[in-house]
């Protein structure tokens, strides 16, 4: 897989710096492309990409506050749900479809991933890694569902109903015929590292992962 890309958040000027996973995602985007950000929150990534890379962006966001904040930034954002509303988008409508820190909260992650693969030429997914050593040891030693810095809610409260490990996600990509073009793990400090093919190491040490996927050509 590819080299770790150079990450820049500097172009935001006085604005708050991008979240590390968003900065890494931004570095993977070619300028002047069309992009759909699924679960775009307050539109931070879309705005950054519009300003620094002339990306023609669209957003889908569940929360009213997120949509309002995005619309206020002049972004084209629709209130909707990844689980139910991706079917409304035509095929190949975007160069990229981004889903950051959301797939674990969807009802049907596989279906969501399939829809994204249909809509975009390339799909970028970032997710918390449930295989991280802290989580593994916490579960092994305490025998309780882990509560960590990035997964900070109790099992009964968390919206994250479909947590997975990096290797689980690699398997899902295979299942939906997605090619992993690049994959990175992020440490808690935001340090990015390319994930090797087997992903055993990243699955243990990476707190978050970011995948750049493309469609397997038909008949392959």
């Amino acid at each position: 897989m590819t080299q770790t890309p150079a990450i820049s958040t500097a172009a935001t000027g006085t604005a708050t710096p991008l979240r590390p996973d968003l900065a890494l995602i931004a570095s993977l985007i070619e300028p002047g492309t069309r992009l759909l950000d699924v679960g775009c929150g307050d539109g931070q990534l879309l705005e950054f990409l519009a300003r620094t890379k002339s990306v023609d962006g669209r957003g889908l966001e569940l929360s009213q506050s997120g949509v309002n904040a995005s619309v206020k930034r002049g972004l084209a954002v629709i209130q909707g749900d990844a689980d139910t509303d991706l079917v409304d988008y035509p095929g190949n409508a975007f160069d990229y479809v981004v889903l950051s820190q959301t797939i674990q909260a969807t009802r049907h992650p596989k279906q969501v991933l399939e829809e994204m693969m249909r809509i975009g030429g390339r799909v970028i997914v970032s997710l918390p890694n449930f295989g991280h050593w802290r989580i593994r040891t916490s579960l092994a030693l305490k025998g309780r569902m882990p509560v960590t810095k990035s997964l900070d809610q109790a099992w009964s409260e968390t919206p994250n109903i479909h947590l997975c490990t990096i290797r689980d996600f690699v398997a899902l990509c295979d299942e939906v015929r997605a090619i992993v073009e690049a994959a990175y793990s992020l440490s808690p400090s935001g340090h990015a590292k390319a994930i090797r093919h087997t992903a055993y190491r990243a699955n243990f040490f990476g707190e978050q992962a970011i995948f750049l996927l493309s469609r397997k050509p038909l008949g392959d």
Partner: protein
Amino acid sequence: MTQETDPQEQPTTSGLQLTLEAPLPLDGGGTLDNVAVAYQTYGSLNADKSNVVLICHALTGDQHVANDHPITGRPGWWETLVGPGKSIDTDRYFVICQNVLGGCLGTTGPLSINPATGKSWGITFPVVTVGDMVRTQALALDQLGIETLLAVIGGSMGGMQVLEWAARYPTRICAAIPVATSARHSAQNIAFHEIGRQAIMADPDWRQGAYEDAGVKPTKGLSVARMTAHVTYLSEQALHRKFGRNLQDRTRPTFGFDADFQVESYLRHQGITFVDRFDANSYLYITRAMDYFDLAADHEGRLARAFKNSPVRFCLVSFTSDWLFPTPESRAIVRALNSVAAKVSFVEITSDKGHDAFLLDEPEFFQTVKGFLDAAAEARGVN
């Protein structure tokens, strides 16, 4: 155009007025000559005329958006949204609202005199469409020297006009804000309109539409039409919260057909006050125009074709408890816009106030409009 207009002149019920110089072609065939257009403006036009916001009113609305109504004396119907420092900030934007074609507050409609007979048109007035209303607005703006609009906004039938504007004149508008609306009037809505029309026509004072000549008014029919319609603008929750089963000025039911319940009394009041400011034939014509509205049908049955290659930025808004123009109607428009890669935003506002929510105090709605409009102004370089 009659005269160069000045907001301070002509303190009549219609406010400002102009007359279209050219005959107005109608979707149903034929033309109308000397069409009068009554309108109101707020704020001032900037030097490069880039700050114009057109407001399209709903079925029973009129041009008095943000001033006291000349007949009822009540505040303008969108004073919650439009004014100095408000979401549509009249310190920054030049706001225009025109009474629709077929209306009854200064724009040509069934109450106007048919030059051929010297009498009121009544129901010999040609049936007009939402498209005709929008064409009238565009021609009126031409005469006012306004070529392009920063934004067009409207709710309900006003939203239909906004969609029509975007489909017909995509290069004349930068932004479109269709609120609580639909790209086609539903069977249920047509049904409610038909009840209203039948109520008017069943009133003996309707006189086959020629009541004006007879010097009477079908007030009973029109007020029943209004009462029916008014229920569709509310929601079960809103009615329950407002009235419940409370009795009106009494402690026990009278075992008669008086307005025992507060909700009855309220509806009767709505009906009675409506007839003072609205013409029954106008009600027939305007409800008909809404019924005929089907934007997809005008584009080979595909709504998306209405917006192909549209440069317009869209912001659609719906309300959760609106069962007259429910959220799926807005979503269908969003889908069509998405499929042609239009720039579209969509917000569903949580409210229990039904269709009327777009006229009421809904802070999330106000913020959405303000955010979107200001961003559109910034993109256009409006100072």
